[in-house]
């Protein structure tokens, strides 16, 4: 998103190129235009713009993509420090319906 950049070098997004079948799903679902598919293989254009929403990994039919999904929210991270991380993923009450 132009004008909006967040922290660099932290995204957990990984692409295993050999597994990619070039289906084109990741560029479709990514809300930040991170991917392009060229000659049957996906490429990450801008990893630092990834918000770790998990849409790409969830929709990749060949498990070529992985990311630790979650919500980029301070109270979520605090809860992650205090308790288990998994549970947290469920907790996004703060952004309800905005």
């Amino acid at each position, binding site marked *: 998103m132009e004008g909006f950049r967040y*922290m660099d070098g*932290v995204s957990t997004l990984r692409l295993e190129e050999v597994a990619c079948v070039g289906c084109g799903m990741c560029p479709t679902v990514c809300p930040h235009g991170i991917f392009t598919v060229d000659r049957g293989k996906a490429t990450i254009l801008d990893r630092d*713009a990834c918000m770790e*929403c998990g849409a790409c990994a*969830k929709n990749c039919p060949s498990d070529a993509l992985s990311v630790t999904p979650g919500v*980029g*929210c*301070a109270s979520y*991270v605090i809860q992650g420090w205090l308790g288990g991380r998994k549970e947290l993923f469920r907790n996004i009450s703060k952004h309800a*319906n905005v």
Partner: protein
Amino acid sequence: MGRHRYRIEPRLYAVGSPGPDSPVLVTANYKMTFDALRKELGGQNAWILVLETGGINVWCAAGKGTFGTEEVARRVKTTRLAEVVNHRRLILPQLGAPGVAAHRVREECGFSVVYGPVRAQDIPRFLTERMKTTPEMRRVVFPVSERLALAPVELAGFLRPTGWAFLALFLLAGIGPWVFSPSASWHRGLGASGVWLAGILCGAVITPVLLPWIPGRAFSAKGGLVGGCFAACIAAFFWEALGVFQGMALLVALPVISSFAAMNFTGATPFTSPSGVEKEMRRAIPLQAAAVVLAVTLWVGSTFAG
């Protein structure tokens, strides 16, 4: 709390007079999302399949997993969609993708998933142009109108902390060489409460609105910067009345409150990653804590210096 008011019944709805070839659009049972979609579909014939997401919008419900593969498959079956339409295609909002695995939906209920645009207003174009999208239709945006609309939500989130902060500030305000003074508590407490409110305003409203134009990446840094500018203006006006210690306390306290409030705003934006927020917080929280200690020391210490 009052959620049901925003909820609609999860089932199949008709817009116009749809037939067996009409498109099926899937959405959450959050009333505002549903109404927006229905409005955009005005004049067309379509089906809307509403999922049970507990009255939560698509994006949040997808993150929680309630707008998910299983729920899509379940609704397709309970509404007997396969008997209502001839085709086997569902149009899902792109922002539902974190919860739905398109390939698994097909395995589970025989319908294939097409992800539509991010925004409901692009849907008419998407439908007339045979489900083609432009890159713009696939990107989230975060315009100033949206950032401004979040201000009341952010401020409401600070109501309870503000109550506690006022209590602590009025208590601290009374402490001095005289041990505890009710009149000092009142006067100094009022001033400190004003600083708190200014800090919240800077971090929860001004920083979000000016977000892309404030230098830096970390929200805590941006908030600190805005709070610092604001504090410098106030200090310049009231330096005589405040004195060195209280003036310094103001210059430290206001930015740190703003910094914390701004850091909290990370949760409301569509571009901050959890790994990024964690990185930011690991750096910011120790600094913020140290600044709070410094500000309180200066402030309480000012009564001894006077």
